Structure formats: structure tokens, C-alpha cells
């Protein structure tokens, strides 16, 4: 099902992930978040931007621990944990945040 953002149409797969990663723009994340009844705050964007940077370097989303550690270093230790990430992304940082960031869905035994 395609999604509309910024007056353009973007192709997504059956689970709502962007098909072409290079299509991504911030408006897509806003639209996806609205579909999930979430409003993106600066805290959300910190995570989304980190995911994108990491993906650029490693061609994979960061491990949960890598993500929580990075968040902890940047935003303080009380936020460097899964609970904080789940409070921002209730469907899971790996899955929901990756989708907003235009990354492919992590697969496997996770």
C-alpha cells in the first residue's frame, strides 16, 4: 500500500516499510507516525536520525544495545535503556522506529 507524503506517493511493502530506501524524506516519517497515532517529538527524531546514520555506515539497523548505549551517551544514562525506547516507539524501536526511518525491517529471531 503506497503512502502519500509531501504531495508525492511512495511505495511501501505489506508491512508498511518503504520499498526504496533512497526515497526517504522526513515527511514520510511524519505520515507513518500519524498512521500509528504518534506525534514525532525531538526525542523521536534523535532516534530516527541515529538509525539512519548507523544504517549508512553498516547497511543494517543498530543492535538494540548499540542503540541504547548511543542514546545513553547522548541523552543521559536514565534514557539509555529499552524502556525509554519503547516509551517513544511502543511497537518496538527495532521495528517501528526503523520503519519511520525508512530502513528495512530487521528479520530473524528477534
Amino acid at each position, binding site marked *: 500500500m503506497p503512502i502519500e507524503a509531501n504531495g508525492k506517493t511512495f511505495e511501501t511493502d505489506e*508491512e508498511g516499510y518503504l520499498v526504496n530506501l533512497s526515497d526517504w524524506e522526513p515527511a514520510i516519517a511524519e505520515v507513518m507516525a500519524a498512521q500509528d497515532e504518534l506525534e514525532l517529538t525531538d526525542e523521536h527524531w534523535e532516534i530516527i536520525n541515529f538509525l539512519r546514520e548507523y544504517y549508512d555506515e553498516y*547497511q*543494517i539497523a543498530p543492535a538494540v*544495545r*548499540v542503540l541504547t548505549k548511543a542514546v545513553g551517551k547522548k541523552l543521559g544514562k536514565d534514557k539509555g535503556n529499552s524502556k525509554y525506547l519503547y516509551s517513544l516507539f511502543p511497537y518496538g524501536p527495532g521495528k517501528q522506529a526503523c520503519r519511520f526511518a525508512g530502513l528495512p525491517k530487521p*528479520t*530473524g*529471531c*528477534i
Partner: protein
Amino acid sequence: MAKADFEVPELKKHVEVPAIKEGAMAHLKPFVVKNPDHNTDLGFPGELVDDWHDKALEKLGDLCSRYRSLQVYLDACVKCGSCTDKCHYFLGTADPKNMPVGRQDLLRKVYRRYFTLAGKYFPKLVGAEDLTRETLDEWYSYYHQCSQCRRCSVFCPYGIDTAEISMAAREILDSIGYGQKYCNEIIAKVHKVGNNLGLPGPAIEDTLLGLEEDVWDEDEVWVKYPLDVEGADILLVTPSADFFAEPHVDGLIGYGKVFHEAGVSWTLSTTASEAGNFGMFIGSYENMRRVSMRIRKAALELKVKRIVFGECGHAWRIAYSFLNTLAGPFDFLDPNYPVPQHICEFTWGQIQDGKLELDKSENDEITPTFHDSCNVARASRMGDKPGGQFEIPRNVIKAVCNNYVDMHHDTIGEQTFCCGGGGGLLTDDLMEIRVKGALPRMNALKQVVEDQGVTHVAAICAICKSQFTKVLPYYGFEMDQILSVHQLVSNAIVLNRKTGKPEWLEEDEDEDE
């Protein structure tokens, strides 16, 4: 937690057999492969073939001729009813097609129609039916509501193994281009990148260096998590979720600490960075073999003497029961050690030899119970005694914890209830069956939580750990009440082999200054 768009069953402290509800789960189907590469990379047609009817029957005949067990299972059922209340998916959904016999009959009725004399001439008398598109879709639906946990086979007087029937059905579906997205995409990734997650070498390396840093910060000891080290004694093959997810990674930290204290040299491998083997879930011997061969290749290239498997349920079934046939002979490994060895077996050996100093009090805030993972419990063994697969993980936990409680005896050991996410079902599009299928396990957990003060459940399977993380909150528990067994070990182990600060960490810090 995500909101449920289905009814979450009510928890009791015991199992109640529900009154049947015909078709209760008929609506549930996982996503079908859309990207043809995910089929063709595995050797299957890219999409559903036009002559699927004949091809499916041809494959069924082929499988019956290749696996005598399958034909026996399809022939032998006498409808005694022993299995009917043994499947967690039936107990959680009340759909009679989720009774093991109901599930088997979906394939059996077609087998009878085309492969037995009575079925050919008197189909109605023997419950034989034509293969129709409806039947095909029903196979797709209900053979993806089986986690191949084999609990039913424990109770079947003929030993009929529904897992094998479900694997055969999935293989038939794959052979006509009607495969499941989740499994096939993952197997394609293993063939291409080396693990289920698609983690490239540099990402694994980054994660492992991060772990070294974390252990240093905590304990001021440099515990190494080596990757691709040629000449190491031990190759550790572990599920890629151990690099990625929680609580899995805490288990990986624990394995490293045990190896460190044991003073052995070990390594992980970029190319064999996955213990799991989804080839088994789809019943494909060819894919299972291809996935297994990576381990042999890595072991040869790295010139290791031993192979140890991390905490992964179905990987251990394949490792223990099939690896030698699939990828052997392993005559190049040291014959003094089991080929392969389970990490729990390794750790328990070290504990028995007095090599590890353990401070149990570090786990005093935890009262764990142990969830026997189905493939370890019913499809393998561990160590050199029968029942070792039950005793060794418990021995390890008891050696590192002062408090340990077992769940009800009908729900552990050989009779363990599946976590609800095994066998290729650990995907969001099957969340309804995952949550409902977890009911019997959650019931048993509730009982020990309320009556005996259990705080956590520990497991030795990546799928179980992820599944619990997801389903525990649906039943009012916390997502972090699931632990890795080696996480408990990691908490208790005293690091006596002092090693200096990692050189690269010092460099990093100098740069910061």
C-alpha cells in the same frame, strides 16, 4: 505494548481444554513471498505455478517415497484422540484444525484420495478429499499455525510427529511457489549475508567491540569477543539475535566471560554468524544442508578444533541430531570433545571442574524458572546422559542462583509447552496465534509467579526469548522478565583473570581528550 486487535485469552493457573470453535483461526495467514528472489534463491519457483495441483501431488508422492516416516504418519492415525488437547495452539484458539489430528488430516485427506486404494475408489468412506484451491489455502493457513514443537508426538501412541507433517506440507507449498515471506526471506539472507538478520561483518565487529567496552566499564577486565580469528580452538556458532536483541546479547556477554575464565581461545565467524537454520522449518533438506555447510566451511577455514553452539533451540536440534549427516564428517575436529557441544554443556563442565568462581548472591534479586525450549527438550539431548538436555541447563542456573523454581511438571521437560513463536512463526503478521499459543506457558508461569515468587523465566533459545519479550506484556507481565541462561551466569561469574584495558579503548579516550 502494541494494542491487540484480537481477544487475548484470560490467564488461569492451569490448563483448561476449551469447547471447540470451528474456523476460529481460518482467517489467519502469514504474508506470502512477494519478491520472487526470496523463492528462487532457495531453489523454488518465484510464484505460484499454474499446474500447482499436479505438482503438489507429485511432491507429496516424492516426499512419501523419500521419507518413510511421513507415509507411516499419514497411514497410522487411528483417531484415538490422545493428541487433541495437547497442542498449545488448540488450547489457545479452540480451533479444531489446530488439534494435531485436525492439522494432520488436512494433508492426510489428500494423501488418502490420491495414494491409497480405498481413497481412490471410496473417498467418502475413508475421509479422502480432492486437492482443491481451498484445501491448498487451508494448508497455507494451518501449517503456519504449527510451531513444529512435537509436544503432540509425546502423547501419540503411534508416535506420529505432526512437525514432520507440517514440514512436508510447507515443502510442498514451497515447491509450487507458495512460500511464506518470513522464513524464505530469512533463508535467502543467510545464503547471501551469512545470518538471519543480514548483519554484515563490520556491524558484528562494531557490536562485539561495544561489548568489550561494556564489560570493561563494568568489571575492569578485558574480556574479548573475537571474530574470525584463525587458529582459535573453539568456533562459537550462535544465533544472530545474540548480536542484536535483548536479552539475547546478555547471554552472549556471558558466553564470552565463561570462555575468558576457562582460559580457552575461541572465535566467532562472520560467515557462520548464525546458528539457526530455517531450512528445517520449511522442511527443505537442500536448504538445511546449504545453511549447515557454512559452519563446516568456517570451521575448516579458521582451523578450529571444536565447535560450540550458543543458546538456540532448533539450531541445537540440527547440531545434535543432523549436523554430521548434513555437513560431516567432522573428523578434522578434536575427537576428545563432543561434536558439536552446547554452551550449557561447556559451562557446566567448567563449573564441575572448579574452573569458575561464582557469586550466587549477585542473582539474589532474581527467582528464575526455566522454560524448556521444544527443540532442545524433545528433539535432542545434551551431555552424555539421557535427560541431560533438562538437567544441564538447570544445573547451570542452580550453580549461579540461590533461588530456583520449576514450573508445573506437566508443562516442563519432555512435556514442555512451546513459547508459541517457534517453527517460523515469529513474525508480526502471526501475532494473534503467537499470543494465543503462548497461553498454556503463561498459565504455568502465572502459577509459579503467584505461588512461589518467581520473578523471571530463563531460556536457551533465541526464538523463545524474542517471543516472550513480545507476548509477556499481553498477559500482564513485563517484557524484561525473560532472561538468557548465560545472563544469569554473567551476573554471577567472578572475573579473576585480570587483563589490561583494551588498547583501542585507550586510543579512543586519548582522542576524546
